[in-house]
Structure formats: C-alpha cells, structure tokens
C-alpha cells in the first residue's frame, strides 16, 4: 500500500484491495479515521505482520466495521485483530485456521462471523460471549462437537454447520430462540437411537454419596473422614432440569432423537445422572424414559415452529 495513503485520501471509507497479491497490510492504514470497510480477500496475507501493529489503538481500530480476509493464508487469527472493538463483520473464510482463540470474545460488536472452509476442529465456549452475533458460519471445517454454551447466543439467526464431523448436537440448541436457518448436511449425525454402551455403573461410594445428598441425610464434618466430606461437597446437580438427582463422577451421555414436526430427527445429547433418569426424578426411578422423551418432543415442536428452515437434507 502506498505510504501517503492517509494523507491523499483522508476521507476514505471503503477500501478494496482484494486479489492484488498483498502479503501484508501496512501501517499506512492506521491513520484512516473514516475507513469502515476493508476488503482484502484472495491475497497472500497470513504471515506475521499481515496486519499492522497497534490496530486497536489507532483511528482505524475504532472506525472499522467490516473486514474481509477470506481466501488468504492465515494459519491462526492474527492477535492484532482483537483490538477492533467496533468490528461488526469479519470474514476469514477459505484460510488455514485450525482453531478459534478465546480472544474472539474481545470483538464485542461482532454480528457476522464467517469461518467456513478452514480446518477448525473445535469451538471455544468464549464464542458464546458475543452478544450481537446473528450469523455464524462454520461450514466445511473439521468440527466434532458444539459446546452447549453456544445456546447463549440469543441473537443468532443463522447457523451454518454443514460438512463437518458432528455426530450429535447438544440439547441446548433448542434454546436458540431466534434461529431461523440451520444447516447440518454432510455431518455423520447418528441416525438410529444409540445407547451409550460405555456407561460405567456408579461405584458404591458414588451411590452412597447420592443417597446422602438426595435424602438430605444430616452429617457434620466430625462424623466423616476429611476426604469423604470433601467428596460430598463435589456433588453436581443432574443436568436434566426436571431431575432433582445429583451425581459425582458417573453420568450418562445419551443421545435422544428429537423430531422437528416429524420431519427430521436430530440427535441431541443429554447428560443424565443415570440411564433411568426421567422427570420427575426420585431415588426409586423405575419409570421408563418415555416421559423425558416426550418432554423433549414438546420442546422440539416449539423450537420447530421458531426454526423455519432446518437444512438437514
């Protein structure tokens, strides 16, 4: 980029340097206080120094709203990127990213994030801390699971997950109230109901601990050895919201299939305190899983009405 850029064109708002073979975007950009859109796709960016240092402190750091770096050679998201606190739209499609750093949450104004066509294997839960994110594209990556925290993205309208390595989805996905578009094709989603065969039955210690907690058996620290007092303090509540049970180490990952208006069956991941966990839960829960299944289905049909187009096919 020419050295006098900010002097010649101080009012510059949109700059498109796509397809010019640039290997770095230099400091000439920093002093452009009105630049809101920078398009630099299909270049040779990706090495250290691809983006100018001090981006966050410069005038550009405050003004930039749209940044398109797709079709470059980034192996990781450049750290100076995270100073762009006013950025609304970021595209890094078709690069060589292997991960998304937790720093992504610094881009607090982000509404549009395109990361399709990379080599990303997992999603950091910090991604869910972007309050305005409405369009998230993660297609054509190597993602194996979605963190349940993603359900906190209340503004999400469109989620693109096609062509990844997903076998199931977290049940929390049903909580995405504004989600209208969801693409899931080209994932090895489990089609038939799969019972987690590797469930390890709880130990006697665990069973005793559960009984003490769920029946509110009173105890004082002097009643038990210190290690058992500590153990009892580690009880976790069963993630099934309708179950009052607790677990310590042993919980079941169960894949439940949820019909969306009878058209699609999405495998959703439930974590339960035991294979018999259902609602309401009691210590002698002999009831079948049909109750919690139909609860899921109620939730699902509500979600289906909200979710207008599930591009599963």
């Amino acid at each position, binding site marked *: 980029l020419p050295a006098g850029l900010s002097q010649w064109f101080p009012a510059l708002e949109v700059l498109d340097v796509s397809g010019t073979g640039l290997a770095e975007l230099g400091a000439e950009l920093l002093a452009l206080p009105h630049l809101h859109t920078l398009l630099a796709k299909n270049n040779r960016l990706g090495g250290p120094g691809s983006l100018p240092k001090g981006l966050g402190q410069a005038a550009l750091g405050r003004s930039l709203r749209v940044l398109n770096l797709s079709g470059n050679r980034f192996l990781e998201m450049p750290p100076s990127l995270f100073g762009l606190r006013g950025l609304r739209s970021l595209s890094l499609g078709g690069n060589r990213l292997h991960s998304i750093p937790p720093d992504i949450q610094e881009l607090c104004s982000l509404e549009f994030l395109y990361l399709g066509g990379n080599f990303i294997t997992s999603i950091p839960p910090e991604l869910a801390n972007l309050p305005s994110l409405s369009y998230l594209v993660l297609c054509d990556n190597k993602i194996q699971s979605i963190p349940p925290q993603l359900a906190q993205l209340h503004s999400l309208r*469109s989620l693109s997950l096609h062509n990844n390595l997903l076998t199931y989805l977290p049940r929390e996905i049903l909580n995405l109230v504004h989600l209208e578009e969801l693409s899931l094709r080209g994932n090895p989603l489990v089609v038939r109901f799969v019972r987690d065969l590797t469930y390890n039955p709880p130990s006697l210690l665990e069973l005793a601990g559960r009984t003490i907690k769920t029946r509110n058996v009173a105890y004082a620290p002097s009643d038990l050895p210190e290690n058992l007092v500590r153990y009892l303090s580690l009880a976790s509540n069963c993630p099934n919201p309708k179950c009052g049970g607790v677990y310590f180490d042993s919980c079941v990952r169960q894949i439940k299939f949820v019909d969306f208006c009878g058209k699609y069956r999405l495998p959703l991941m439930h974590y339960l305190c035991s294979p018999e966990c259902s609602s309401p839960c009691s210590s002698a829960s002999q009831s079948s899983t049909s109750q919690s299944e139909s609860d899921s289905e109620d939730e699902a049909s509500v979600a289906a009405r909200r979710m207008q187009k599930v591009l*599963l096919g």
Partner: protein
Amino acid sequence: MEQPVQTEMWKAQSLEELIRILHRIFAEDKVSVEEVQALMESYESNPEEWLQYAKFDQYRYTRNLVDSGNGKFNLMILCWGEGHGSSIHDHTDSHCFMKILQGNLKETLFEWPEKKGNGEMIKKSERVLRENQCAYINDSIGLHRVENISHTETAVSLHLYSPPFDSCNTFDQRTGHKHKVKMTFYSEFGERTH
C-alpha cells in the same frame, strides 16, 4: 415441450432482448427445451443489466422475480452469498433452466427416493457450473441441490421455470423424507417485497 418445426438458434445481445425472445418463444404452443437452453446460454452476462435485481441477503440465498412471462414462465435471479445452498428439491412437474450470471454454482443430482424411503438418498452426479453456462432439469431427470461452495465469492444465477410454480418438495438427504414448502420472492421487478 416437443421439437420445434424450424430450428432457429437465437442470440440474445442483452437481458432485455433475452426476455423479449422468451416471450415470443413461449407464445407458441410448442416450445423446445434445446432452443430455450441455447438462447439462455447465448446471452453473455452483463452485470449492468441485472444488478438492479440482484439483492443479496446475509443469511440465505434470495429469489428475485424479473419477469412473469405472461403466466407461461417465471424468470428470476437468485443471489447466493458465500456458502449459501439450497436443500434438495423437485420442480413440481415444471421445466427449470438455470444460467450462471456470476461466480460458480455446484449442482448435485439425486435419484428420487423409494416410496417408502428410509435410507440415504443416492447421489447421481455433481458438477460445477461456470459463468454463462445453462443447466436444465425437470422431475423426470431427478432432484438436485444447488450451492455456492465458494468461501470468497458470491454467485448470481438466472432461472426460468415453466409453467411457473410457487411450491415444491424439499428432501432430507439422510432419509429421503419429503416436505412441501412454499417459495417466496425476496424482490419482484427490482422492488423488495415484505
């Protein structure tokens, strides 16, 4: 559609001329698929002529009506953002012509699922259509999915459907189950619909 009496190969010099010739062709009782496909392919895409119809949506591809062909056909422009794709769908017994105006689109052809379909749908073939190429499909040929697989470029395509239709079936690739959907226009004659 059957073979025409005379074989005339049109060359459309502009989008306006393309539409005029289409009106003339479809005014006849018999229309030839080959003739329409050749005509559509002959038009060399000029963005100045169709930019007014090319309205993109951030979240999904859009359908923008250009001409309603005196009720004989619908001509529309579809705008595909990066990564945007359609579901697998049929064409409600109509003819479908699809010409690329900008960028590339991948078309994947599928066999019709069995009546009691409960298995993965069978892929017949796939290809990437380049600028100015025109593809043709109807229900007897099969079903297809169309997608912009580029992560850096948008795509624009020109579609002709005859007779016009406003609903079709979408199919779940994993099971072959179908689901009827209504199709809507994002804009009509260059004006945004709401």
